């Protein structure tokens, strides 16, 4: 058995490898390739979206022929990224062919914030081997009102 070389589908996918590395792979359908013509070079763009929801181009790669994946290195933790695969028109306009999913790179540092507790539902397994289920109420949440760092210092 062999894996198919392609599925004749259009997809551009981003995956987080590490907080600072994003992997990307893509496939273009026959129709997309045909519409692309012979002389156009594919370009892969990585965007980051700020807290103001504005996306800016962070990196742009002119893809060597026959590439179908790419690693973006030196991205930042705790950022939102997406990519576009496209090409430049004769007037210098960028035409995206595909747009990827959004990924969020994970946080790599502790963060302070408001501390909140809730009471979780639990099932007590009695030592006499009898199962006694005890409902302890759903999220009787209360706000501590302290930042977590405060609490660490206080305790």
């Amino acid at each position, binding site marked *: *058995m*062999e*894996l*198919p070389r392609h*599925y*004749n*589908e*259009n*997809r*551009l*996918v981003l*995956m*987080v*490898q*590490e907080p600072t590395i994003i*992997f990307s*792979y893509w*496939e273009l*359908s*026959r*129709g*997309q390739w*045909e*519409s692309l013509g012979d002389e156009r070079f594919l370009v892969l763009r990585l965007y980051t979206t700020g807290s103001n929801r504005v996306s800016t181009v962070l990196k742009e790669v002119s893809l060597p022929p026959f590439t*179908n*994946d790419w690693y973006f290195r030196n991205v930042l933790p705790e950022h939102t990224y997406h990519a576009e695969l496209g090409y430049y*028109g004769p007037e210098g306009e960028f*035409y995206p*062919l*595909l*747009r990827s999913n959004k990924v969020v790179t*994970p*946080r*790599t*540092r502790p*963060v*302070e914030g*408001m*501390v*909140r*507790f*809730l*009471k*979780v*539902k*639990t*099932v*007590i*397994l009695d*030592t*006499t*081997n009898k199962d006694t289920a005890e409902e*302890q109420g*759903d*999220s009787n*949440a209360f706000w501590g009102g302290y930042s*977590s*760092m405060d*609490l660490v210092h206080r*305790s």
Partner: protein
Amino acid sequence: MPEGYLALVLHAHLPFVKHPEMPECLEERWFFEALTECYIPLLEVLQGLVRDGVSFQLTISLSPPLLAMLADPLLQKRYLNHLEAMIQLGEAECRRTAGDASLHPLALMYLEKLNDVQRAYTNKYQGDLIGAFRTLQKSGKVELITTCATHGYLPLMQTREARRAQIGVGVEFFARHFGGPPDGFWLPECGYTPGVEELLKEFGISYFFVETHGLLYADPVPRYGVFAPASCANGVAVFGRDPESSRQVWDRQTGYPGDFFYREFYRDIGYDLDLDYLRPYLPAGTIRVDTGFKYYRITGPGPHKEPYRPELARERAAEHAAHFLFSRQQQVLRHGAKMDRPPLVVAPYDAELFGHWWYEGPQWIDLLCRKICFDQDVIQMITPGRYLSLHPDLQVVDLPMSSWGKGGYNHVWLNPSNDWIYRHLHRAEAAMADLADLHPDAAGVKKRALNQAARELLLAQSSDWAFILRMETAVDYARKRFTEHIGRFNLLAEQLENGYIDEAVLQEMEYRDNIFSQLDYRIYSRHRRYNGICVGTRSPLRILMLSWEYPPATVGGLARHVYDLSRALVRLGDEVHVITCPVPGEKAYSLQQGVHVHRLLPEQLNAKDFLTWVGQLNRGMIELAGQVIADWGAPHLVHAHDWMVGAAGEHLHEQYGFPLVATIHATEYGRNRGIRTGLQRRIHEKEYQLTQRAALVICCSNYMAEEISRLFELDREKVKVIPNGVDPANLTDGRTLEPDCKDLYHRDPNIVFLGRLVPEKGVQVLLEALASISGRVKGTRLLVAGRGPYEEYLKGRVEELGLSPKVQFVGFVDDLGRNRLLEMARVAVFPSLYEPFGIVALEAMAARVPVVVADTGGLGEIVEHGVDGYKAPPGRPDMLAHYITQLLFYPELAVEMCRRAWRKVITIYDWQYIAEETHQTYCRAVARPVASLWRRGL
């Protein structure tokens, strides 16, 4: 009361390896070796502890593939054959080493152990190790949990459906073996990604584990670090792995297993002795493998090895147990001083470490448990579930992605040696969800094919393949397995698509990959029509639906929406009462396709002034609702559509206490791009009030959700996005041919626009684009359907741009007219500047016409650029022209997009799916307990 606790967690997993098609298989030995060296010795240790009255607590995670292999009769039989061969090897070894004072006792020891294992397996357990674990669980000293169906690595899956299936199938499989679902869940490789907790909750799981930094980098930083569990916002508890206890066991250099007195794993007679001698015991008689006969101790870092001395190793195991205990005592004393509860040290390990790699590991566990029980009072062993019941107050945190792999994230399972697998896996995930959506009630061979497809996908997802591909050994086997499962999945998916299933091929697959015999493929459905044993029975609701318009009266899209939604809810089993305006020729009460329609009397609505009329409408609705309640009983909830009926909804909520749900279809602010007149302000205020009073607010797109939560100052959690649906049947009337994507090849290059002629619909942008399109595609014609205040201006622009021969204004069209227009279209274009949802785009997709839309509002959320249509930035005629030209110029491209769009319409925008989502939202508003787990029993 101890000063603190230790939760020792052993995670036992092996990939599902079973090859009935071959007389023997090298890789099946992984399982056999683990049985002999880990699982059976571990069971013996635990039973010894129970027998001796040692008070201990241990958590064991048993993966579904491991359970499946333990329960498999063929593997049980093959294991006995394997044991028999190893015993013969042991006997040969005793003969061979006779006279060697250092090696002979070791050969005798191995032989004796093998005989013990054989006796235990055949006589005591009678092949049923799962039963032995069950007995331990009943003793109350061992808590059993499980993991994903095939140990799929969750952070690298793309869809929620794929994650749900991995978790759900795992939980159900465990439940079948142990009579109920587990309390806790082991995430494969500790791989967590945001959202996993929702799925765990869906299947009744109360806790899981993450790697140390997965908890320490949570937001906010946990007050007690990893020494107490925290809780996700949804109430599922999370335990963080303690790094110190982990290092003491795991670390290559400093960990206990590296002690020079312990047995050396890498010196096995399978590699050291003459091939001719070993031949009878090796796979195929030629392949050198580990035999388990290992005669040396680690000795030192160099190649020189001294013979193994079991009695010395045992002493070291005792010392290491004492050291481990001492370290835990120090830890809890150090941290307990700063905590309001006894600290908990969570120490999870791979079970296969104990006995296989670390030969003395089971002994160490034995000694550790005994020491903790008899030698001290500072710490006690505990299971996570029990700790939670003692200390259920948990800090709420938001977890980041993490895993326990090298580097702490996804590197091990995603790197240049294995990254190529994901394009196949992700494609299969999406295809499986589509298959489940498209075949909700499959039976017979089709059902078997769907179940087998799900099985093959699950098997391909096993984290083991990605892991092995990265290593130097067994790469070929992992590649072969991955390729076979994906290959089988693709074959089945293709056959299901074509409607012809080769039963002989299917049967062969079922024979080879027969894990999860009870699997139900519908767990992959986005529609969640799945009725597995873990999902509670659906409780029907009685809904009072308020809408000012209802068919046959339709002014905007509202009537159609309420009509489709009500019918779909009724099909799901809910009872829906619609209260609405009178329509000439319609009775005050009628039952229409299962929906109870109650209409006001015409004389109740006689005001000329708009707002007065609205007041009459609401008073009438309240009155009529009173009668409906008297006749039919109290509803569970009131659902109001838009501000016009807000007052009635609020009144019913206040008077009777019914929970109120409001759907906001559009806002006054959005329609007018601001609030200017007094009337607009009044309407805006009514919208504000309605959304404030409602328990939950529904809207049709993320864009609208943002707008609504901003305008009406709502917590984003309170706003639920449920897209509008489209019923493809409504798009066929009036056509001469059934819709078919292939027709695009034969049509004239007609561009169609449908919509009101107002500036925000953006027809002016399309006109600007037209000149350049018609320059490239001969015979291009634009058909503009709709009326509106902007019509004259647009006609003027057509003149100015010299486009008169190419543009035709066809005026207002009804449903039939729309369908006929779409039948002529090569492409439909919606260049809006503002659009809350954009149902017309969905209608075009349902009519098999490719679309180009402006990337704005809800419209942008419907289309996936380059996959099922194109999106141009709003107000950019050049980009719009480019994409329209591409679709006109390349029919194959247009047909591809059209096909994908159609698939989207019948899966994601299906009314049944939307009704199910709405029902879930109702349940949330009524605050009913959601899935009533296990009530239906097994």
